[in-house]
């Protein structure tokens, strides 16, 4: 089969702007324009003199034109921020062009600054903002006490420069609000307050370890309407287990249900693993698919199984029937309508083990890792009591109890104390529901829905300086959504109540505490992923069929985690920012250590490994196999893509969008055939329109030529690579073709420094570009934590932070603390006005 990738032409539209198309003539309906008068009299003449030639009516370099501007538009905040930066750094007008005087520059900058302050008053992006999809799903789970991913079915959010926290993009439409209300309804409907469990509740517990016939345990199918199929018996541990499984083989229990209605199902597996000496425990990879109709796939879960026969590990999963495909097919046992729970399990190992051909399910060889199912339990409908009832004392069907329950729920949902005035609408709604005939439980659930669609729950409060008490709780929420993407915990609320959350020492201590908490996983994953664009596919390819393909799911996931773990380690140890670029260690786990050729580790969790002196990859983000694989777009190891990625995410120097009138660079087109990438790109740069960006992207991109499509180090490169997908199971294969030659990675950094090796590039970046790296990092923190791309005022504060931290070489956790203390994060508008 011919390859999908090999023929793909190189679309020109690869390196995209992070600061999406700063078109000055953008018109959005809600843009407000201010400062028209001063613009026309003071600023416009200067722009006309120095800028219009390249950014005017006739030419629009980088897609920017100033001649249509009439003042400071709220839609152009980013444009003006950039203008200010370029002036500050002396990058515009470019060398060789007519330069404005210091006074003239100052005039423009002062004007920009004044307007930016004015714009904030009109539209304070970074004040109130809506919870995004992740935050809403987490908050709902937390508040309702349901351990289930409620983001299924919730509408997606718009992104701001690749981040899901941007206030401007977090607006709603009727359709998205209604969908959200439906998800809320689905979630709330499973809760009980006073009601006893449903009469028709089905509960099945199966113990597979004692050899009792399954039929006796499951009960009469006609009554239970649940069928469990556990596969073959396996003699093991002197007894018989069923539903056993090992890498690539075996059969997992299936669970079927018939005559199901809406609601929650709880399925619990008791698992035990056989882990031979020296190996790490096997992973149970569960993928959920086949989820019904309009909601799309649900994703994957990975559980490392360390349970033993006596102390089995429990893996529990909740499902909404609404989320599962309901089959109508006639089955051998005559079901009219049934659901099969859409697990697909397989066991993965950290590294390939020699296959024993004789192995089969009835002869388990305990030299290999196995996962056994010891027991399972199915409950439907699953209707837990609302978790918040704990500590409320006795609840009865009376108004006092209702007030107590609703009061607690609203307080939790609003993340702060609630006064009786605020509570009253909810109590009123409760009473009206009761009057219309709803039961106690129903009315409470109705009120919960109302609370969860209310503005005070869905919006993160602003710190607006009007009310000290209010501000304290707003900061508590800001902190908890920053680190945990979830509601504040008891300690934060206590500190808020004590008025301590504006105390800088307290804030520092909270950074330490919250970062060390396991919930900080949310910040580390979400932030690192959006910052470094880690959602792109990692391509693990081997030459030809290879047994390692079988285990690559776990490897790919681990390679993605490596970068997150590395960021975590830098923060944990408060290492200098230089370590982002260069260090002497890497974070490895069992499978990545094997992949990188280091001694075996037995842990799936990441630990710090000191790199060998002769490891050419070295430490730092640039050498992470996941990253260099993701950026090997279409398998052509494309220097452009890698160069653009480095500029965009790490060096804070995003290349502008490619112009549209330039023809594609097609390596397969007639005269281009047989030319090396370096030759092709040199040719491409002869076109002045291309050269503008390619002269920065390409020479930097060549630094990564030592990495192949899967991020493995190579010393030789082939003239061409053939990449193909061997089968539906996506076994990616690649093979060098034609002549081979030593990798040539000579290149150049944006400011002209030349290098001839990957290591040299890294040390040049660490020496000469650290300010850019840190600035980019702080800008992303502002966007993630405040909900806006930094404006001129934020940039000023970022520079102040950098000046303070530069002498200490920018320790990463200190940078984070500085950000949490910042006026931007604490939204101290008054302070800003006073200070400037």
């Amino acid at each position, binding site marked *: 089969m011919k390859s999908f990738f090999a023929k793909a032409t190189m679309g020109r539209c690869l390196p995209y702007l992070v600061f999406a198309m700063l078109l000055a003539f953008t018109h959005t309906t809600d843009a407000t324009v201010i400062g028209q008068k001063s613009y026309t009299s003071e600023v416009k003449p200067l722009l006309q003199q120095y800028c219009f030639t390249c950014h005017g009516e006739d030419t629009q370099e980088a897609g920017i034109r100033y001649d249509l501007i009439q003042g400071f538009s709220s839609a152009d905040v980013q444009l003006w921020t950039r203008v200010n930066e370029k002036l500050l750094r002396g990058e515009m007008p470019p060398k060789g062009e007519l330069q404005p005087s210091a006074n003239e520059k100052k005039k423009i900058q002062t004007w920009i600054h004044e307007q930016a302050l004015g714009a904030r008053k009109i539209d304070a992006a970074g004040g109130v903002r809506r919870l995004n999809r992740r935050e809403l799903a987490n908050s709902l789970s937390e508040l309702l006490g349901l351990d289930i991913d409620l983001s299924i079915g919730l509408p997606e959010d718009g992104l701001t420069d690749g981040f899901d926290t941007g206030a401007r993009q977090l607006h709603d439409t009727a359709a998205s609000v209604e969908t959200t209300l439906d998800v809320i309804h689905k979630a709330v409907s499973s809760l009980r307050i006073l009601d006893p469990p449903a009469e028709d509740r089905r509960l099945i517990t199966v113990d597979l370890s004692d050899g009792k016939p399954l039929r006796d345990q499951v009960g009469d199918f006609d009554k239970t309407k649940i069928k469990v199929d556990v596969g073959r018996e396996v003699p093991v541990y002197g007894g018989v287990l069923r539903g056993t499984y090992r890498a690539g083989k075996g059969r997992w229990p299936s669970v079927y249900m018939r005559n199901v*209605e809406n609601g929650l199902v709880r399925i619990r597996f008791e698992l035990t693993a056989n882990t031979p000496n020296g190996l790490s425990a096997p992973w149970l990879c569960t993928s959920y698919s086949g989820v019904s109709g309009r909601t799309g796939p649900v994703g994957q879960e990975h559980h490392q199984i360390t349970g033993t026969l006596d102390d089995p590990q429990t893996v529990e999963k909740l499902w909404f029937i609404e989320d599962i495909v309901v089959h109508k097919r006639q089955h051998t046992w005559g079901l009219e309508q049934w659901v099969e729970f859409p697990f697909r399990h397989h066991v993965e190992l950290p590294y390939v083990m020699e296959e024993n051909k004789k192995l089969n399910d009835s002869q388990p060889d305990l030299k290999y890792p196995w996962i056994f199912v010891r027991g399972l339990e199915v409950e439907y409908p699953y209707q837990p009591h609302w978790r918040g009832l704990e500590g409320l004392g006795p609840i009865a069907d009376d108004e006092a109890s209702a007030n107590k329950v609703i009061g607690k729920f609203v307080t939790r949902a609003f993340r702060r104390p609630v006064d009786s005035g605020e509570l009253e609408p909810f109590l009123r709604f409760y009473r009206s529901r009761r009057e219309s005939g709803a039961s106690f439980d129903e009315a409470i659930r109705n009120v919960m829905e109302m609370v969860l669609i209310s503005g005070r729950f869905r919006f993160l409060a602003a710190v607006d300086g009007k009310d000290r008490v209010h501000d304290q709780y707003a900061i508590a929420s800001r902190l908890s959504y920053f680190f945990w993407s979830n509601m504040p915990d008891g300690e934060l609320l206590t500190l808020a109540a004590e008025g301590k959350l504006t105390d800088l020492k307290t804030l520092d201590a909270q950074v330490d505490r919250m970062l060390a908490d396991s919930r900080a996983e949310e910040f580390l994953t979400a932030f690192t992923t959006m910052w470094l664009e880690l959602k792109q596919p990692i391509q693990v390819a081997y030459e030809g069929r290879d047994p390692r393909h079988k285990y690559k799911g776990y490897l790919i996931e681990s390679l993605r985690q490596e970068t997150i773990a590395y960021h975590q380690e830098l923060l944990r140890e408060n290492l200098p920012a230089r370590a982002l670029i260069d260090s002497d260690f890497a974070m490895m786990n069992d499978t990545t250590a094997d992949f990188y050729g280091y001694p075996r580790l037995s842990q799936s969790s990441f630990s710090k490994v000191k790199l060998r002196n002769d490891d050419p990859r070295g430490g730092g983000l640039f050498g992470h196999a996941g990253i260099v694989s993701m950026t090997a777009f279409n398998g052509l190891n494309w220097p452009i893509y890698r160069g653009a990625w480095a500029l965009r995410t790490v060096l804070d120097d995003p290349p502008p969008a490619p112009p549209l009138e330039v023809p594609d660079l097609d390596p397969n087109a007639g005269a281009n055939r047989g030319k090396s990438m370096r030759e092709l790109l040199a040719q491409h740069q002869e076109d002045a329109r291309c050269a503008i960006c390619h002269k920065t992207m390409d020479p930097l991109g060549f630094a990564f030529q030592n990495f192949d499509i899967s991020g493995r180090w190579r010393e030789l490169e082939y003239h061409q690579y053939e990449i193909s997908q061997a089968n539906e199971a996506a076994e990616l294969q690649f093979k060098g073709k034609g002549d081979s030659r030593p990798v040539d990675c000579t290149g150049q950094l944006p400011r002209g420094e030349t290098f001839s090796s990957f290591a040299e590039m890294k040390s040049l970046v660490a020496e000469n570009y650290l300010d850019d790296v840190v600035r980019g990092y702080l800008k992303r923190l502002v966007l993630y934590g405040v909900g806006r791309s930094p404006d001129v005022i934020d940039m000023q504060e970022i520079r102040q932070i950098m000046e303070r931290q530069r002498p200490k070489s920018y320790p990463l956790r200190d940078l984070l603390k500085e950000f949490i203390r910042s006026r931007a994060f604490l939204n101290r508008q008054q302070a800003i006005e006073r200070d400037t």
Partner: protein
Amino acid sequence: MSLRQPLSRRTALKGLGGMIALPYLEAMNPHSLHAANKSEAEPPRMAWFYIPGAILRPAWFPQQTGIDYELPQTITNIERHRDNFTMISGTMHIEGQVGGHGHKLNWLTAHHVRQSVGTITNSISVDQLAAQHFGHTYLPSLVLSFGTEGGDHGVTLSRNPQGADIPPMASPRAVFNSLFPPEDAAQLQATQERLALKKSILDAAIDEIRSLHRQLGASDQRRVDAYLTTVRDVEQRVTSRREILEMPRPKVNIEGINLDQEIEWKEPVTSIKQWMEAMTDLIVIAFQTDMTRVVTYALGDEGTPGYYGREWVEWKEKYKHNFGNPHNMHHNGGNLNELESADAKAFGARDALYITCFGRMLDKLQATPATDGNLLDYCQLLIGGAQDKTHRAVNFPLLVAGGKKLGWKHNQHVQFDQGKVPTSDLFLTMLQAAGCPVERFKESRGPLSELLT
């Protein structure tokens, strides 16, 4: 209210045969609340049909322009509708071109899509803009496709105002169930109760949001104000839907619509023809009953798994060719110079099949009476695609049918200067013909007067 509602009326439907009573106003009159309340005019409808990947252009584009053009091979099957459609060539998304395989991402948005995998930025699609301006129907729009996923390999053509994908539906049964409220009395009641409850929750929430709004400083009010407006809008929709539920029901004939066909593209199970016929029949009923006025329908995707319809097996046999990778077929299939190649023949057959099914839908719409004339004259239906044998998004093959009462001239081939006229102009023309008060859409410069009377 019960915690759980009965799952569906699948079983209940079985016994009812083909005729199903549906909520409806009188068949010959305007059906929606909007139209009923505001005017007597038949409301306009719009639908977009996306042909994936390469379209066999030599068999699609006419040789001549103007009125006396000769129908090209692919289009001959709808000769009888010559008066009802316009062929358009030469338009493209000028700024909003995409590289690679992302044409379906921006065919209806004209957005310059940032397409690094995992992070797609996009903007509102033209259909959703239309839906915003149309009155409240039972469904704001129908989003149809061959699969149910959005996202990176999105198969949906529709994006909300934030540019996020609107998940599509693939199965005729799912479409039918979402289009029409339950006909079973108990279920209808449950639906009505849920809507009533939803309305009271929203009403209560509106007061709460208003009180929050009052507490805020001016700069924060804007965002909460927008939320308040949106929640009010939801409340309005829910109210409309309740009223629609209470309306009298005419009978709609669904006999012959295969609602329960299995949708499976990885194996040659589903017939493209049968599936498209069922879906277009549902579109006709949806328009006829005015349950929605806006439809998008992606007929497939460029790569897998879009091309394993049962017909491909026949074409493979007929044209004696091993098609192999569908992606490569597209690169070869649109080839101008090799009209006689097996790939080209198969793609011609595919295009013709789509057009035949499209024509069948035109027949049915034409046979459906409207307030004044027939329903086809009030529907603007665009079928076409966005790319040729390479990934270049130029010279879109487009055909607009219907809408004569909305101002369409028809019976002509209009060729625009390539690279000069944005497809956004066409979208703007359609929006304005449908009475949407919009001045521009993305790259538009103005409506295309050539197309209208």
